[in-house]
């Protein structure tokens, strides 16, 4: 099972990304996914978590992820060293930042790309970047899921975001 932990702030769309990634993966043959938010009241700006679990068989374990394959951080102020403890040994942290990082941490300048595409949030940019570095889903899978689960007027922008971010990230 591949487990992804999303960290963001209320309003950044962490759960939307978690859900679209799950839907994209589940649309592939013999692929199953669960996506859920950190349970509780939602407040704009407060730290929020979301989870996506991906597997080749139905997922029975609905408990919160204890060790993730990927932690995706939409707001870099949410990074702390303690997050390393939530990673599997080969796990990676994908972080939206302009600063250079090393080791298990992969920096990706999601803010600049979102600004270029006139997107107010970086959720789909970072989702595209995950596709680029991991290959868990293809850009086409994500485009299909966006077509099904995002409102029409924001689809095209978000499809471009996924496309560009995936391309840039796969070169990392």
């Amino acid at each position: 099972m591949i487990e992804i932990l999303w960290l963001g702030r209320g309003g950044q769309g962490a759960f939307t990304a978690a859900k679209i990634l799950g839907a994209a993966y589940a649309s592939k043959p013999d692929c199953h996914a669960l996506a859920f938010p950190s349970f509780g009241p939602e407040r704009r700006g407060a730290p929020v978590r979301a989870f996506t679990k991906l597997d080749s068989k139905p997922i029975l374990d609905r408990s919160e992820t204890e060790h993730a394959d990927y932690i995706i951080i939409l707001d870099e102020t949410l990074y702390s060293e303690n997050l390393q403890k939530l990673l599997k040994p080969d796990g990676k942290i994908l972080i939206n930042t302009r600063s250079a990082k090393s080791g298990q941490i992969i920096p990706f300048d999601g803010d600049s790309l979102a600004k270029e595409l006139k997107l107010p949030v970086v959720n789909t940019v970072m989702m595209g970047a995950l596709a680029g570095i991991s290959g868990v889903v293809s850009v086409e899978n994500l485009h299909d899921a966006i077509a099904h689960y995002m409102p029409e007027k924001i689809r095209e922008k978000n499809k471009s975001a996924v496309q560009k971010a995936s391309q840039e990230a796969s070169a990392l």
Partner: protein
Amino acid sequence: MEKFLSGDEAFAEGIRLACPDVISAYPITPQTIVVEKLSEMVEDGSLDAEFIHVESEHSALSCAMGASAAGVRAFTATSSQGLLYMAECLYYASGGRFPIVMMNANRSTALPWNIYGDQRDSLSQLDSGWIQAYAENAQESLDLALMSYYIAEHKTVSTPFMVNLDGFILTHTYEQVDVPTPEQAEKFLPPYETENKLDLNNPKNMAFSAGPDTNYIFKYKEHTAVRRAVPVIQEAERKFAEIFGRQYSGLIDAYQAEDADYILITLGSIAGLCREMTDKLRADGIKAGVVRIRYMRPFPAEEITKAVSRAKAVAVLEKDISFGNEGTVFTNICSALHGAGLTVPAYNFIGGLGGRNISHQDIIEIFEKIQSGNAGRVNFIGIKEGENS
């Protein structure tokens, strides 16, 4: 068609397929988004129902009763304090034999105020005369939305039906769900027809008083009607499998229980993790098994005792506590074991109250404890050092 839906959304899809005529709801917390989805379906015309916004849960169920008394199919939904607030009406609906379907999102009860998942809300209402089912995943939620009407409205049953979905863990979690076609649903669920209605051509007294001489017989009949749901549940599942290709297993769902030495009995969405841990223990040579209770009313006393009759020890894991006694599910199970003359050691494990996570290790430890006999009658799992002082 396969869709990626939350438990709430899946249930709303099931209700859309069941075509209720009236949906009454109070949309404020702790209500979940199931009624919001249904209101959108009514708005976009894909569900031809009267959607009535009311000012409280007490009114929501009263309104559904009014609709049912007019002879039409009614739906409402609630959760937690909302269910408790409508408690008075639960008894009116069952006593009036109105086959309303209600979805309850299992959430904790105040105080301290908490909207996270546990099953204390619905389990406190076991005696209200409603059929109670507990879903494990979003697919079963959708399927129960359809089956609940079939069972509740069956002429031999005519009893309201509460479908329970674990708050957040089921209501807010997204997964793949096969959404049947309206044609399939129509083939499965006959239109609601009843004589228990206000009818100008056949006027009758409804919702009346009954003194000590007859009241008792009404209560006896309520009891036998809930028991009569047992064969109707089987009938509904047979027909459901024929049309939709998914077979359910009646009042309980037993996994690896046949030759199991140690059996964990539970209900709701935690059962999946319990089965996964059972596989892990079996790989280590421990004969573990799981029994998931699908229906708390009618209670599967016979089915459970049959499933655990050869076990060396039994654990009951529930997100509930009857303060000063034990978990209510455990009380029900002990009564069944006693009735069947079984003396297998049984232990109660209380967990997940107020939404606390139940981990892999918690499940493994339950099995270890009942295997060694190193457990009390009632055990609170996962209490950390210092928390119990």
